[in-house]
């Protein structure tokens, strides 16, 4: 009883100041659609919180300074070696601070999981069409979050100033230098002069602990608030429509499940960090220009850039005394531009193609949108090939192959495999659609073979339930867009015909190959014709 009284009094005090009852009334029982694939974004969100918490711990000991010190700590193979304070303080955290190494490892594993979860979440959103109106803004925010996370991760793992990440900074400097006109200025402003300088670590530090996390917090808040306000999407399952939201109430079920999943995420990351070593900077040694290790790679999410750098041909042009290094600009600007621009613009591209201006709250089954699914797989495969190419030297050693052959192999694969992947994926989607259509028309195969009096052997099919029939036919398959009349009612040629023609062509590319969902009339016709 006392607890209720205290709770009541507290609620009263709060309500008298903030009018909170209105919010609680609406929100406590707010419905959240439930599916495991809706938790992927949460993995990213909770990993971010883990990063914040463990990151604060690390800031209590880390020294973002280039100042040279001679190590006299406990790790013998580095005693007497000159190194920056940044590196020395990382060693101190790892060896002298109790719990330091486990927190460092949680922080780094959480970063890898953070980016991976965002990518997986983005794939789920893409393949189910959750980016459609009214959620285009959230898609944009998501893409920005992913791109920011690459920079945040790069800044983070460069802070210890070890040989591996210092090499990465050298490559970053080389890439920046390649930019026409402004390259040298940007580089000198970023590094405070020549490489390595004494400014980059403190600057990366402030970007990593303040600037980018601040932007993250703002964007993530907007991202989650939009989901709250627009309500989460839901799969086309029985009972779900465009005009409702079906799921569990925020309090207590969603609170317990989502809150619990935060602890699960933190716990899994911690257990992984307890038993798997990550970023053992004491083995790399402190960064010194002139030193390098075989098999130097950045963290996995930068791998596609690394692969691009390895695969791009060695083209460079000199014009009127100025140099344009295509071999670096390609991987720095062109390839990311080709990958990210369609990604950013996709919701708008698809809306233009389909002419679909309606709100969508029910998701697509990926097989029902074969062109989108195929394009998505094609983009993923391209990115994966670049990622794998970034590890070509490790592949060479692991499989005892020539690194030159592997590089050439990847150069060929990057052009051959993605279109193939598109075609194969689209065909698989269409095939699955046909199978769904068959299920509706003919029912499911029971495996019972029956011999008819006339000698014919048939397999008995059992009709599926009407509920299942609805699930397999509820989707819409748009027709390819028409160009429309070339002249208007008065015979005047229409303006902007070219845009309409382009749209019609792309729309044909999207919707020409289609499988119509069957109707009850067709089923009835089949049944009455005696088809089994």
């Amino acid at each position: 009883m006392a607890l209720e009284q205290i709770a009541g009094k507290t609620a009263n005090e709060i309500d008298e100041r903030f009018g909170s009852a209105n919010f609680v009334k609406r929100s406590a029982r707010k419905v959240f659609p439930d599916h495991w694939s809706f938790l992927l974004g949460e993995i990213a969100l909770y990993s971010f919180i883990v990063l914040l918490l463990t990151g604060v711990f690390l800031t209590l000991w880390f020294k973002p300074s280039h100042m040279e010190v001679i190590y006299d700590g406990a790790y013998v193979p580095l005693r007497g070696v000159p190194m920056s304070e940044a590196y020395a303080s990382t060693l101190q955290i790892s060896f002298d601070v109790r719990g330091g190494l486990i927190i460092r490892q949680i922080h780094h594993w959480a970063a890898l999981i953070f980016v991976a979860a965002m990518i997986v979440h983005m794939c789920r959103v893409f393949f189910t069409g959750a980016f459609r109106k009214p959620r285009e803004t959230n898609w944009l925010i998501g893409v920005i979050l992913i791109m920011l996370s690459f920079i945040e991760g790069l800044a983070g793992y460069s802070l210890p100033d070890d040989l591996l990440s210092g090499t990465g900074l050298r490559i970053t400097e080389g890439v920046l230098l390649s930019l026409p006109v402004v390259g040298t200025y940007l580089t000198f402003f970023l590094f405070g002069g020549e490489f390595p300088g004494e400014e980059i670590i403190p600057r990366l530090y402030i970007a990593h602990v303040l600037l980018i996390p601040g932007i993250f917090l703002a964007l993530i808040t907007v991202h989650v608030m939009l989901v709250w306000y627009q309500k989460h999407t839901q799969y086309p399952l029985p009972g779900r429509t465009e005009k409702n939201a079906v799921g569990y109430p925020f309090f207590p079920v969603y609170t317990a499940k989502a809150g619990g999943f935060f602890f699960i995420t933190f716990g899994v990351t911690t257990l992984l960090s307890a038993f798997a070593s990550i970023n053992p900077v004491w083995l790399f040694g402190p960064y010194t220009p002139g030193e390098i290790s075989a098999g130097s790679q950045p963290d996995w999410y930068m791998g596609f850039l690394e692969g691009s750098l390895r695969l791009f041909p060695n083209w460079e042009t000199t014009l009127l005394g100025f140099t344009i290094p295509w071999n670096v600009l390609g991987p720095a600007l062109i390839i990311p531009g080709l990958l990210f621009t369609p990604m950013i613009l996709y919701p708008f591209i698809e809306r233009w193609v389909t002419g679909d201006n309606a709100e969508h709250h029910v998701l697509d089954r990926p097989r029902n949108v074969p062109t989108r699914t195929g394009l998505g797989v094609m983009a993923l495969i391209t990115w994966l090939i670049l990622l794998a190419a970034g590890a070509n030297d490790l592949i060479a050693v692991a499989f005892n192959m020539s690194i030159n052959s592997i590089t050439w192999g990847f150069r060929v694969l990057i052009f051959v495999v993605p279109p193939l992947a598109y075609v194969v994926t689209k065909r698989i989607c269409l095939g699955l659609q046909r199978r769904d259509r068959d299920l509706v028309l003919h029912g499911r195969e029971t495996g019972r073979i029956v011999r008819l009096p006339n000698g014919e052997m048939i397999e008995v099919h059992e009709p599926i339930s009407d509920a299942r029939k609805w699930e397999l036919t509820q989707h819409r398959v748009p027709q390819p867009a028409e160009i429309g009349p070339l002249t208007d009612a008065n015979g005047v040629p229409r303006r902007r015909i070219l845009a309409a023609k382009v749209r019609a062509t792309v729309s044909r590319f999207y919707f020409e190959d289609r499988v119509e969902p069957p109707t009850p009339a067709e089923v009835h016709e089949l049944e009455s014709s005696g088809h089994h």
Partner: protein
Amino acid sequence: MSDQRIHEGDTSGSKDVQASGTSHDALVGDEGTGAPGAGAESGHLVERPGQDGELTRTWGNPGLPSHVYRRSDVDPKAAQRREREVATFFGVSTLGTLLFIVAYFAIKPDGEDLLEEVSLSTKLLGLGLGLALFCIGAGAIHWAKTLMPDDEIVQDRKPMRSSDEDRAAAVEAMKEGAAGAGLGRRKLIRNSLLGAMAPLGLLAIIPLRDLGPLPGASLTGTWWRPGSRVVTDPTGRPIKAADIPIGTVIHVQPEGIEKASHPLNEKAKATTLVIRLEPDEIQDQKQRDWSVDGIVAYSKVCTHVGCPVGLYEQQTHHLLCPCHQSTFDVTRDCAVIFGPAARPLPQLPLDVDEEGYLVARDDYQEPVGPSFWERG
């Protein structure tokens, strides 16, 4: 199976359903009300716009399936067992916390067995913390799944678009405000405001000028001077030409570089490789002129994006950069034979002084390292 699942004809949880309201143009065609339990098996058909926009008769949304009860919903003993399971999770979590606390104070890594102790401490602290966190989560989720009501609730989803009245009111409010500001009428204010705001943005950028010095000619010279002795890196010993065996690669830097005001910056540009070939293996005339008895020196900074080109393959005379596999042929003035580098490595002209020590004849005659716009 039927004794484990109890179906109910009428589903619960329909109390939160509100009337679906009028269908707006903005929404995709009406799927029916989705009323729960309306027709899981009854096969109701609806009219809805088909593929070509015309209304066709097709299957309607069957509504929520009938609720399936869990054991813990019907059997109090099963519910109690679930309670105990949840409590066990929370109990293990407490044990994990305890493990963390004990391990933290029991193991202080220092001295002789540093790495073993850090290893043990990391594992125990991680196991403790990990179990503590994971089991709270698992317990909460298990509680929600098995004991909290799992009836699916249906809530109305209003279209995002505001009502026409709201839109009209908003437009009115903005019009009134704009009229009050009078920007449309008062062009002088509008123009001078724009004139003031636009350049204000510059004030955010201009103070960034001192982030760094202008590049100037920094990238075109290194610490090497005519007569700089070639010394080993990192041990700093000068090298006699006669002491260099064929097939060797020596990592070198200019003598005295540690006295520079920014030694690491200078080292990043001046780091160099000395290689000894058989004199007749050198194919390029300029390369031969700048060599001493088959001893050549090349910049170690890769012309691709700046990694140290360290891998010398003694038998093929190829220099390999480990980052992106640019390969340079030392017998042909480090011409690029594979990989993304576009330019050969710059050569350092060599000489020997009176005592036979290797010296640089001059600085590099071109900028070392990656290409940049003003390189020429």
